[in-house]
Each structure stands twice: as structure tokens, then as C-alpha cells.
């Protein structure tokens, strides 16, 4: 745990620049979620439609300038599910087609979300959801969860450093045995630090949404509309004509 957001991970890639990065997050959210819904609704056997959707996603990866190795690495999350799908041909009737369809759907779902999160920095993604009228309580919880992930990993590294500095070294067995109390301490520490930071925010006038500066003010532009309408037309035709 911890450290998930550090280093050359998603955050660095999402901060890049490309036509896809520059699209309004709302357009990307609606477009890509629509795409996943269409893909999931396809019946086994609609191979042309699956191929067309994968082609769209591949095009987006290219347009976003995402490195193939990076995309593949992030897609490894689907491996267990692909393995499950690979078992289908042996367990059910018509399993081959079914397995292939499940595998494709899982892949499309994962790839779409990898593209979304790799071309939109998290705060902008959140802002997109806010502007799409997501319930405020949800966006507030998301924002704090994100903030506190940093607090947590910060506290983890502080605690690790503190132990090491005082000559701590232990086998994994002892480590496992002390996990409970350590996690509990971590929880309270992070909670209280998070609480103090929250109070500092409210003392400086915070009331549930971060101030927006010119840099992250958003406006739907022609290119966003163009993207969305092309996407809609493409998806509709895939869903209607290709199966």
C-alpha cells in the first residue's frame, strides 16, 4: 500500500499534452462510458462491431501519444479475468464464442478507462464529474479520499523511516504479527492529520469545493462537440448496423 501515486505513474502520463488530453473531461467521460455500454450490450458473434470499437480505442491511444508499453502494463489488471474467460470453452456450450466475447468486453472496458484516466489529471476528472452534476456529497468524498491517499502514504513513509532510524529490522513473520497494531496506529495518525488539514482548509474559507482558477475553468468548445457527435454517430452505427 502507499506510494501508488508516486513516481512516473498515471499522474505523470495524465499531465501530458495531446489532442485527447486537451478535450474537455466531460466529453471524454460521456464518450468513453457510452462506448463501454455499447460494447457490453453486444451479443457474442458481433465480431465486426468489437473490432470497430477496438479500432476506435487504438486510434485514441495513438492520438493521445500513450506509449504501448505503458498501456499494456496498466491493462495487466484484466489478466485474471481473461484467464477465467479462457476457461469457458471447456466448461459451457458455445463456450468459445462466449469466452471470446467476455474477453473482448473486459478488454474494452479496461482500455477505455485506462485512456480516460491517462489523459485527464485526477482533479480535472473530478471537476468534469462536478460539472456533469454528479451529487456534491459524492464529489466531496472523492476529493477527500484522493487527498487522504497522499496523507496515508505520507504517514506510511514517516512511520517506516522512524522505525528504521531506530535500528528496526525484522523478518516478515514479526511484521505480519505487528500488522494489526501498526495499521491501527496508521489509521489514527492519518485520521488526525487529515482532520487538522481539513480544519485548516475550513479556517481559510473552504466550503465544499475548491476554488477554480483560470487554468482549470472549463468550457465546452467546438472540438469537444465535434468529438462527441462523431463518437455518438460511430457508436450508434456500430450498435445498429454491425451485429
Amino acid at each position: 500500500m502507499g506510494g501508488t501515486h508516486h513516481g512516473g505513474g498515471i499522474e505523470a502520463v495524465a499531465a501530458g499534452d495531446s489532442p485527447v488530453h486537451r478535450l474537455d473531461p466531460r466529453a471524454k467521460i460521456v464518450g468513453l462510458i457510452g462506448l463501454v455500454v455499447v460494447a457490453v450490450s453486444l451479443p457474442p458473434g458481433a465480431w465486426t462491431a468489437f473490432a470497430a470499437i477496438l479500432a476506435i480505442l487504438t486510434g485514441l491511444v495513438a492520438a493521445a501519444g500513450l506509449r504501448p508499453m505503458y498501456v499494456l502494463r496498466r491493462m495487466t489488471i484484466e489478466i485474471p479475468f481473461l484467464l477465467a474467460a479462457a476457461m469457458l470453452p471447456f466448461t459451457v456450450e458455445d463456450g468459445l464464442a462466449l469466452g471470446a466475447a467476455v474477453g473482448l468486453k473486459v478488454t474494452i472496458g479496461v482500455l477505455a478507462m485506462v485512456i480516460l484516466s491517462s489523459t485527464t489529471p485526477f482533479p480535472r476528472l473530478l471537476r468534469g464529474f462536478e460539472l456533469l452534476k454528479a451529487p456534491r456529497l459524492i464529489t466531496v468524498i472523492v476529493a477527500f479520499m484522493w487527498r487522504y491517499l497522499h496523507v496515508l502514504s505520507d504517514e506510511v513513509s514517516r512511520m517506516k523511516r522512524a522505525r528504521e532510524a531506530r535500528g528496526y529490522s525484522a523478518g516478515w513473520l514479526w511484521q505480519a504479527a505487528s500488522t494489526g497494531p501498526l495499521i491501527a496506529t496508521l489509521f489514527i495518525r492519518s485520521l488526525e492529520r487529515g482532520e487538522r488539514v481539513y480544519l485548516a482548509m475550513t479556517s481559510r474559507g473552504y466550503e465544499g469545493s475548491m476554488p477554480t482558477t483560470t487554468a482549470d475553468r472549463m468550457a465546452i468548445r467546438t472540438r469537444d462537440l465535434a468529438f462527441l457527435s462523431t463518437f455518438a454517430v460511430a457508436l450508434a452505427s456500430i450498435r445498429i448496423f454491425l451485429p
Partner: protein
Amino acid sequence: MTGKPPPALELSDVHYSYPDGHGALRGVSLRVEAGERVAVLGPNGAGKSTLCLQLNGILEPTRGSVSVCGMAVGRKNLKEVRRRLGVVFQDPDDMLFMPTVEQDVAFGPSNLGLSEKEACARVEGALFDVGMEGMGGRSPHHLSHGQKKKAATAAVLSMEPEVLVLDEPSASLDPRARREFGAILAGLSQTIVMVTHDLPYAHELCERSVIIDGGRIAADGPTSDILGDAELLAAHDLELPHGFVMNHH
């Protein structure tokens, strides 16, 4: 609009116990007039920081009441209270949360609804006051401790509150920053409440001092009287540093 303005701060019989049951304030009554500069002195664990957190409603008294500029501190007018009274916490890590120092310092002013231009000017001014000009682009979590303290202070200065509460402002500042920040404070017309263990600093900046010990007010008077009373100081673990000679202003 006529007559005496309400006191900047008024605490009456404030008690506070932390959620774990530890009692930290045991009946503090204190009145600070608008424009006064008051130093709060006392040993470690006396309740000074706890007191600061009562002033803008971050902690609520278990008994007693606090008012700021004539307004009772409570749920209803927390927003107004916090607009008027700014607290710089003792630990700057508790105060910094934005990705860059600049954004952090701008957070308060933009919540006040200032125009972007005005907010920018405030940010620049505040960073200059604490000697952090040119560091606005850095991440506040990747600073030295003293730099964090300066950034946290700037974040409150930029809100230009009527009452400024500072918890150990000089701790971890380098000697020059300590002096320069003192000069900035001396030039402000706001009401200032300053918790400090740095008695010479209190002597330089505040005409009045209050000693807190064991969650109660133990003394309250002109700073030079209080610092001149070695017996009183010693009774509360205070003393002028070795080699320091108190001269008169």
C-alpha cells in the same frame, strides 16, 4: 458606528477536554481589545495551542464561550468569524494542502471571493512578507521546515484578517527571517495574539503578555512587568535566555 468597538476577542470561562478525555483548558477568561498585541506564554502542555484552536471554532469549548469582534463563535457565524480571525497553526504540515505554494496562499483569498487580480496581488504581498518570493511554484510538501512555516504564515496573512493568531511564529525561522517577520508584524495595525516561547520576541512585539499554565491564566499584564518578574516567570517554567539583557523600548 459610535462608541467603543467590541473587543477583538472575548473568552469567558472556557473549558476544553480532548476527545480522549484529557482536560486542556480549565476556565480561561480573557479580553483582548481591537488593535492590541498580546503574547501568550507558558510551559509545554499548558494549553496555548488548544486555546488558539478555540478562537476560530476549530475546537468547541466543552463549557464557556468565545466571541470574536463581538460575534459569538458558533455554528451559525463560523464563516464570518474565520474571515475576520486567522490562525497560523504551530505545525505547518497541518496547514498546507495545495499542489503549489502559490495555490496554497491563494486558497484563502479566492474563498473570500476576491477578483483574481486582487488575489494575485495578495499572494505576492504575503509571499514577500515572509521572504518566500520566487518560491510560489514549489510544492509545499517538498520544502524545509522553516520554509513550510513561512508558507503557512503567508497563507493566513494573504487573507488579511482583523485578528491574527500566531502559534510560535518564530520557531524554526532563521535569525534574519525571525527579525524581518517581527518587523512586518510590528508594522501591522491588526490585533495580534502570539503564542511563543521566545520571550525576547514577545518583549519586542507585544505590549501585553498573558501566562497560561495548566489550562488556566496565571498572569496578565504589561510585558515588561511580567518579564521583569523573575519569580513569576520561574513559577511557570519561563526565564529569559542566558545572556539576554532586557532594555526598555
